[in-house]
């Protein structure tokens, strides 16, 4: 009898060991090159310097020890922006007290969305600058960096509100690599994206 129980226990232990789901890892997205030395060089977010709703400079250094979520928007956006903001607020609320995560929203209406306007916007959303930076800056720099985040941002007089952009949210790791993205207008896709954030946190902050 004792032997049987022991064998059973051993079997259970084996099953637990082998059935454990494999740890999921996120790929590094974007083009990759091979350096002369033979190493793979991954796409990285380039240097940037923008200014947020509290007139603070926001640069790569701001996120040196954080993973961060990026999107593009403008205040008088008559189409998708409120939905993307609503889903952004889900991320904001989930990681509110977790300093490892931050959010960065770029305005693509650099003429109208001044620092003061961004400040009013943040107040109406009830968000804290330290966690969620709404930034403006040099027009070309903002439109240029959209490419590096694999997002679309163009001025288009025919588009509603005068700008065309994707409602994408992009996840960037501590090493400036893009690791995941989602359609910020789609609540379900954002839920999947939030699981990706957790996967990335486990990878980058091993216990």
């Amino acid at each position, binding site marked *: 009898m004792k032997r049987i129980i022991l064998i059973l226990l051993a079997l259970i232990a084996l099953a637990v060991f082998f059935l454990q789901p494999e740890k999921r890892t996120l790929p590094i997205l974007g083009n990759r090159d091979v350096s002369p030395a033979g190493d793979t060089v991954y796409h990285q977010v380039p240097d940037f310097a923008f200014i947020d709703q509290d007139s603070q400079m926001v640069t790569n250094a701001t996120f040196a020890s954080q993973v961060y979520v990026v999107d593009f928007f403008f205040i008088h956006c008559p189409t998708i922006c409120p939905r993307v903001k609503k889903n952004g607020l889900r991320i904001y609320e989930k990681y509110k007290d977790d300093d490892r995560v931050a959010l960065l929203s770029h305005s693509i209406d650099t003429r109208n969305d001044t620092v003061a306007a961004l400040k009013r916007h943040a107040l*109406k959303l009830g968000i804290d600058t330290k966690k969620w930076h709404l930034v403006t800056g040099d027009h070309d720099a903002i439109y240029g960096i959209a490419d590096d985040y694999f997002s679309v941002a163009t001025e288009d007089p025919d588009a509603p509100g005068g700008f065309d952009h994707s409602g994408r949210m992009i996840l960037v790791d501590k090493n400036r690599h893009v690791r995941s993205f989602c359609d910020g207008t789609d609540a379900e896709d954002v839920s999947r994206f939030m699981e990706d954030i957790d996967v990335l946190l486990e990878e980058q902050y091993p216990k």
Partner: protein
Amino acid sequence: MRKKGSYSAIFPIILFLASCQTNPYREGERLYKNTCANCHMDQGEGLRGLIPPLRNADYLHLHREKLPCVLKYGLTDTISVNGQTYTEQMPGVPTLTEIQITNILNYINNSWGNQNAPYSLEDTRRMLEKCAR
């Protein structure tokens, strides 16, 4: 056998009636999803201090006469909804027809717990005269 046959003929009709019963505002709902829900959201909850709610919004019955014009030509005033102030701009949808406006208004006034008086096509037509352009 014949009895069974006649039942199965009636069944789809009952189902059809039941589905009408549960959703008398289908056209209004479709229009709402396409033209309003991006801002006011699927459950009419709005977005914090930016976009006012439609669900349980006192504005709907306090400004009943104004609503057709709001939908068609938008709203730029500072307004108060359930005691909270809103200052963003709502763009109107000038292409909406009187019938579409009536359908949307009946949908939002009878969804998410709202129970406000219905709009007839006549009501909408009369109220739109105040903002005719």
